[in-house]
């Protein structure tokens, strides 16, 4: 069995390439900015992939760094989801990653389905505007992501998906 996947960070990036939420699960130290950089730079690779690839949401392994492997996902509405997995010397199955992404996507989806989310927006021109990084409105999404990360970390390779 494959060893457990460990999520180090999850980033949601808006279609306009603004961070929506960057959540790190590593130790709360200054490495958080590292994941900001990772999220930011992975946009490069995502754009490259999107331009060449067809309509698949899951973009696969974007790149791997010294200790993390970055995977990307783009929703049909161009919200980008980037996860950073702790690098381990084992094959990471696309199915599992895709499942994680799907779960994250669903979490995001249900979070933005909140009708109160855009209530304060007087001129709803830019729907993603309310979905900025660190918005206090993301409490629910944040907890969902944490839950996903926890499940991913706990489950063995076979039972991923929670």
């Amino acid at each position, binding site marked *: *069995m494959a060893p457990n996947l460990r999520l180090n960070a999850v980033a949601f990036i808006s279609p*306009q390439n*603004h961070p929506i939420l960057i959540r790190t699960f590593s130790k709360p130290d200054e490495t958080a900015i590292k994941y900001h950089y990772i999220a930011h730079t992975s*946009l490069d690779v995502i754009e*490259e992939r999107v331009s060449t690839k067809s309509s698949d949401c899951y973009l696969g392994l974007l790149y791997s760094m010294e200790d993390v492997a970055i995977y990307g996902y783009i929703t049909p509405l161009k919200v980008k989801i980037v996860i950073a*997995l702790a690098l381990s*010397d084992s094959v990471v*199955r696309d199915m599992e990653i895709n499942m994680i992404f799907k779960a994250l996507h669903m979490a995001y989806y249900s979070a933005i389905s909140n009708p109160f989310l855009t209530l304060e927006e007087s001129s709803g021109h830019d729907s993603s505007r309310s979905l900025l990084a*660190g918005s206090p409105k993301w409490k629910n999404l944040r907890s969902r992501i944490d839950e996903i990360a926890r499940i991913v970390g706990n489950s063995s390779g076979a039972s991923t998906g929670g």
Partner: protein
Amino acid sequence: MNSYPLELLAQLAPVMFVAGLDSPPPPAQLTPPLPTAPSLPPQAPAPTHGRTQSRTHSRQQSLTANDPNHPINLPSSSSMPTTTTSSPSSTPATTSTSPTPRPDPFIVLTTRLRDILANQRRVAVWDPPSSNDKLFHVVLVDKQVQFPPRKVSNGTHSPLSPLTPTSPLHPDGLIAPIWIRKHTMLVPAVFVLFTRLFEDTSEDVDRRNDAERQHDTTLSSLIASRKKLTNDRGIKLTVVLMASRHLLDDASLGLDARLTFIRRQSGLDSRAALFVLSPIGKEELGEFVKSLQGALWEPAVEYYTAHSKRVRQKRNRHQAQAQSQARPHAPNPSLSNVVLPIPAPPKPLPLPPIGWTVRYEYKMASFAELRGEYEVALKHYQDAYSALMMLFMGLRGPGGKNAGVGVGVGMGKAPASSSTPVQTSFSNSSPSTPTSLLKRWAEAKVLADTISIKIIKLYFYNDESGLALGQQRLHVGTFPVVAGFSSASSDKDTADQDDKEAEEGTYEYYSWLSKMWCVFAELVVQGTQGTNITRRVDSTNTNTNTNANANRTITIPVHVPKLGGAASGVVGIGIGGVGGVNPSHTLMHPGWYYLLAAECAERKVERYLEAMRAVPRGSGEGEKELKEKQLMQLRALVGDVLELYTKSYELFKAYSSSPSSSASATNTSNNANARLPLYIAHRIALTYTRFPDPNPPPLATSSKNEYDLLPNPSNDKAPDQSDEDDFFGEGDLLTGYGQTVDIQDKDPEKLALAARFLERIAKSYAREVIHSGSVSSVATSASTFSILYPRRPGDASDSDGEDDPTQSWGWPALLVPLLQTRSAILKGLIRREWREWKLSLTCSTTSPESDEKTNPLGEKLELADHLESYVRLLVERMSVGGVKRAQGQVSKSSALQKELIRALQLLNQFYLLSKSSLDPEEGPRKIITIDHIETQPLFDTSVIFWNGRMWISQSRSKFLSTAQPQNPRERTPFQLTLTTPTKPDGSDDSIDELRWAELRMGVKFEFEEYITFASSVEGEHEEPVQVDQEVDRVLEGATEGAEEEPRMQIGIGTQEVQIIILAQEDDDTESASEEEEGGDDAVKVIDIGHIEFGSGFTSEEKVDEKIISVASSMLRWKREQTVVLSGSVGVTSGRAGGSRRNVGEGRVRISSLLLQLNIPSSTVANVEIPLNVPARRGAPPPPPPYISYSSTPYIGAPSAFPNATSIPSVGIGGGGISSTLTSGGSSVYGDAWWFTGTGGHNPDNAQDKEQILKSSLPRWVPVTRKGNEAGFGYDCVEVSHRPHPVSISVRFPHSHHERSSLQTTSPGPAYVGEDYPVQVSVKGCSCRYHHHDQEPGEEEEEELVEVVMDVLLQPVETDVAAINTISIGPHQSNTMIRGIPLGLLILHPLTSSSSSPLSSSASLEITQTLWIKNTGGAGDRVVDMSVRTRPISRSKLKSSLSYPHEEAETLKTITIPCIEPLTINWDVSYRRRVARAPAGVHGKATLSWLEEPRIGSEEPVDDDDEAQLTEVDVEAVVRAMIGCVGSDHLGVEVEKMVLRSKSSEYAQILSSEIASDVSQKENDVMDIFPLGKFLPDDRLSDICCVGISSYLYDDSIDDHTTEIPSLGTYTISWRRILPVPFGLSDNPNKSERGSLSTTTFPLPALQPPANYLTEVGPGGGVGIVALLDIAPVAKLHQPLPLTVIIRNRHPSRTADVYVQLEMGTSGGVNTAGGASGDPSEATGAAGTSSQSFVIAGLRAGRVPLLLAGTEERLTWMLIPVECGYVQLPKVKVIDRRKGARGTATILAGGSASVSGPGGPPPASISGSGSKITELVTEEKGELNERGGKNMAIDAEGRVIGREVRVVDVRLEQRKGQGHMELVDDGEAVDNVIGSVLVLP
């Protein structure tokens, strides 16, 4: 990679020694036999002697063998015997050659050979195998070269063996690079000896033979001696004899015998040992070299195989030995002793068995590699690697922890053993005591690294990038642990004394790691950039670039996820298993690995710094030297980091640009795909900050305190000393967030460089924020950013994790640390430079003569520069985001602004001082302008004009006072809001301590300006700002008195008001007074007042500018505070005023906004911040959330306007908010909010505190643009002249609906062809502008305007080609009539306007009739009317001058439906003409009958026999049905109807119903008769007959068309019956008629059936037709003529026709069959003809020969004897002409198929088509049934001829138009002879 010995890395290839290719001797020395003194050619590297490479680290050889100067051959070691000894033996080649002017071909040959061989392969690390080339590594040697000794003379071991005491490896070395060198340089696999074959040129055969024999013997002996040498070693010897071409060709010279002799004598092999080469060209030479190598490849492989075998045997023996010996050395392996440094054993023990395994495996791997067997090599390398790992493990494993610690201490943690880590770890030049032991260890490490690299490389050769990366990761991950120089997690327990280091690795570790990744990256670079490495110069020596891509073996995979179909349980191993990859084994482009290497190198630098700090500081000279050395070392290290980063950056750039250039084009942001390079650039910039200061200030190194205690010379006189100290004292403020940068003791130049770098990078990041934000949607321009930005930079991992309050827009998380770092750097720089400057200043003041040197200007400028950019940076930071306020750190809340103030004061001081000391004439003030073009603005700004459009007020009286309230549309209030951004997250960048000196606001009025030039030009305003065009306006109808010749220019004028709001300088009482004034209010209002433009704009100084100063004390912003500048603008037109400026349309906007900072005690330097209006993120502050539901009811109440004078109450509705909130803004401008003041208006409800609080909250109402202002922006107001109240009404006299409404009549339909009148009446509107505040009783002034109309008729959509005409009076046009003067009109007529003096010449309403004549198709006609009104003022009634800006234009568009009054339907049928055509219808060239008045006239045609007879064969009957479609009861009265005929070559109208005589051509009128009223559904019909000549078909047979264009037109003249006007309906007879109109209908084009003309039909002989004609009704017993006309229509053939009248029953008679059943059906009841008639006439007989084109008429007389429908007797016509059928049918087939496209009945196509096949069968004589149908067969069964089709002309009538033909297929009509109704 450079740090490894090249031998251990380079790609191996079999070695070939080539001797005898000496460089040519100089020409002067040709004659004597030369010693080959310089045996090696100059380009071959001379071996360097005595350079023992035992220490391999110092080697600095680049492996990227790009430069040709790089030595190809490795330097030989000392053990190599000297090969350059001059040999006395004369070579035959030199003796035989005689000097010739041409170069000796053999010298050329040898030179070329040498070139080819020497250059064919370069030693490179990356040299992947190519399939077909077998390349040797060629070493050019002397002929007398000696091989190194195999064994030491007295021992049994090789001189390199560890067992040999003299070996460098003795006693426990593994493998030295020298071993590889031995096999690549000193010992070949094959030895090729080039030598010249002696050739005697003498004629004497015997002498020649003797000489040859003699020389050959010598040669043989030479070869034999060489052979002996090589044989000893198993080296293949090959001799290449160079002989002349002549010798080779001439068999008589006995070459073969000589060769055999030489071979035998010298004992050469029989195989591939002797070659003969004659001087040949380069290409052939290349081929030769190739074939030579190909032939020698196998011996080489054998050679190395033999070596391998021997090594394998040794290994096996050794392993067995080792096992049996039970590891005698195991407990104390030598290496473990080696690495234990302290008790260095004096006598190391020999190599352990596992070491020998490493040795043997490595050798075998090398031999396999030499053989080119890479798979085998890979396996052996792997074995060697694992054995080596085991060797290391063995040291650590059984030796226990001590060994591990020992290794760790010895190598990594130098401080434990040696007090100077720097020395031990880094400097190879000064090794510590156990040198040799450390050396062994280092050698082993190098060996491990190089083996790993080889393995990786071999994987890459196979493009197994995953495995390669896996090996790399394995090596990187495990080897440090195994080798013990990294204390990874496994031995963390042992290294508990320094936990941090244990976790993060040591200096050594990172150094090694960086190196490994760097090497890996280099490998990938070399593998991917094939063009970069020239693997070889092609053996043909031509520049072939075929191998340009040969090296590109590494493909960088892109992970394409595979999701479906993966078996769930199976997890693949390696790449691509089951739908997944191992991310650590996925190769990326080499930039990543350089990045990795750089990061490791950076950590290495950190370790170094730690070590440096750990060293206690001593003193003294040595210490200083050491310090300097360390600094140098540090600089070098940082330089390495920088280099790695730069390499990575370049690769990232290259990789991001190349594959995704298309992607970036489509991307929204322009800096897409540059984020990764940007990141690396950021790292590069940070690396710059690591450079140590090369010459630190003597005291600066100690501490900061000393720094600050530096004596300040200006201490006593500078009052701001405390500020300065504060400024420097708060240095740590700027760090501690994100990356912390220690800028102390760093190189200032590099720091400055880093600061510049960071500035650029920060701009890129900021641009991304702004750019992508603005791209996201257009609508965000006004208010998008206002709500959510700026947010403090995200710190997503707060400790609680549940609610991080940060919100970020864009990537401030990346930007803010960057800015902080940059400011820290700048601050450090400033601090340093300030000190230096101060010092220099002190020097200069004390010794003024020396100041030139100590105070260079550049330094000063640099300081100023840095100070300035620091100021800019601070402002930028204030606008982007701020300092995270930690708990309890309130004191720093306003840090940035304080910092800013201090920096400015410093700058000020600097300027003051420098000015006094250096250049007193320097500029008076230094203004730093901070532009927000690429950063976020400091303030949210917005501007709202209450109205989107306003009118220019006409100053009608000279004593106009602007204070007088005018029309409210003539002035509009505006508000400009400046808001400090809201920061809900608690970060505080408040700017409340910043006092702003002034706020300048420019209000600009841009307008079209009209400047008049009278003949006497005295205007002082000739030069407009910009003259767009000069219009010489002489307008139609207004050019009466033009003698003054006034001219006018249109320009663009501007008027600008600078409003300067000065802060009130009551410093002391400021705070108190502000509190009183409500300084804490969220919104402060500064009233500017009214600004009047236009003629009301008066200014003293300049014409275009005016300055208004307002003093206010409100120029300070607290958090979230808003300052509203409110005022109003108006524009006055200047004709009546004193100004000459005539103001046209324009707009008023806020042009500029500029804030100037007031720095206390700063007199020189200051900061100006221009702001954009509206700012990008700026917008009016969003309403607090509760406003929308708690205070909505109060908004809009009149009391909400404290300054109600400037704000009209018009249009403010309570419903405004909710509507805009929900609708979300209708325009792109989003919502705008108007400040209406603070609360307090409803004190009744203010019981509780909350209510009170709310009541003091500011309230904002939305401003919406509705109605005609929709679409106008809020940030400007459009200024235009008040439109003239002119209305246009249109009436349609022809319309029927007039009675319902007079004004808004919709036009009735116009008829195509008629003149349709439209009555346009222009009327001055009497409407007034009623407004609330308008004085009752005020009336508009009467005004006289001149009216000019333009009419534009739009093209008709349905019929673009139609030409319609409009006309007004004399003007007429197809499209547009311009400038129709309509006369004068009175506007605003007073109620008592009758007394007006204007009424004489003007009218209240002008009516004009517009006629529209429509031709073409039906459809809507659209007419645009534009009525321009120009005022003619009373005073200047005579003036011809008019200003376009005073014109008003009123537009009106009408749409008139247009229908056709009459429609026509055509019905066309065709029939054959029976009437006898006159014999004289001739004419190929011209149809004579067209000249004749009538076809069929009996006039004989006199002339030409050559002309073919032509007939009117077909008649087309065209029936026209003309109907009236007029609407309702509207009709037309048709006056006449005329058929006008056109002539055609082949057709002519023969007759018409309405025309008794078609021949009346003179007036083209066929008939006139009064038709009278023609109401809808009335119809009129006409039938006309058109004769068509058969030549039509004959001639048009080529172009496949049988269509006859329209032959004429019906022209109908009609009048419209006008409706009865309302009120006159009682007299219907008086209904009017419209004007005469005509409608023409062209006759349809005719398409006669093709076979009518050519008689192609089933059963008919082509060209011959028989027409049967009989009266349809007969009387019993009365004779009835039956006429059969046989026409020979064939153009050239005569016909031999046989006619037979068959009297039998229809079934019996009709031998042809086919029509048997039909007659009865067609005729209903039929008797048999034999009984029905008595027939008189020819029963059977032959008609006289029918010439081509003639006809024969046969007549029978039938006497009916029976009543009813009686079947006619069958007439059979047979064309008996032999051969006719063949040609005829072919003709028929051809013609029928030709006529196909023209649209004849499809049946005829198929019929004729089938006939072709039928014909073919007939020709073969096979008479089938179908053939018999058309054949007439006589009684004997012979074919007697072809039956001619007999057509009953009564039955055959075809409908026209092709498709209408329903029944008329050939089969049905054919041969049907109808019946006759016989009446009694």
